[in-house]
């Protein structure tokens, strides 16, 4: 079977970019949590966790 060519340098770059985007998302999420009521964020958190 022919397997694809893998460019590790490119993959590492994507991985770093993905991590950076996730950190930016966490900033947005933390801002949202601070802005909203405990009832609102904890009820959404409960839906995700359970």
């Amino acid at each position: 079977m022919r397997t694809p060519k893998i460019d590790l340098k490119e993959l590492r770059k994507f991985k770093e970019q993905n991590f950076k985007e996730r950190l930016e998302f966490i900033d947005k999420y933390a801002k949202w949590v601070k802005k909203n009521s405990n009832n609102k964020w904890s009820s959404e958190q409960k839906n995700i966790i359970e």
Partner: protein
Amino acid sequence: MEIIFSKNKIELKKELNNLDKFVIDFISILNKLNIEYVLVSGYVSILFGRNRSSEDIDLFIEKINFDKFSELWDILNKQFECLNSKDIKDSYYNYLTENCAIRFSRKNEFIPNMEVKFPKNDLDIWTLKNKKEVILNNKKIFISPMELQIPFKIFLGSEKDIEDARYLYNIFKNKIDINLLKEFNRKLNIEDLFNKYLR
């Protein structure tokens, strides 16, 4: 987010998820027996809203003797079971006193589980001594202080840990003792990583 933050106490009311309920049920037994403990894991960030789950929750308990441990074991075993060993002496002498964790889950379940350890070094002892009280829906729990929790997560260094640190820092940066946090950054030798990921 409605949160009351003072030097030694944080008050928070939230809709409890299964992980919160598991922690409260386990901790209430330690509170009842007056056993000192501190929660140190990723659960601290989940408690304050980070949107992820966890299969284990890390906890230090004060070094207790075998008699006290027997008392704890008997009460815990009504609701929970030890996943490492069913034998109390094995759990105490071959795990806890050897600085290995014992894990407890609810009976007939595997996750989540509480990973219970004795403090093994100066840092663990400091954490236990300087624990922060959280009043969660009128229940008392003790967690690692943010000034250590955040740098230690960076020190652990996985993407998940750094995300936890970034989240907690975002939530608490205006409330914590920044000089103490910087001191831990220095001692853990993570100042560059802190500046890279949290600034």
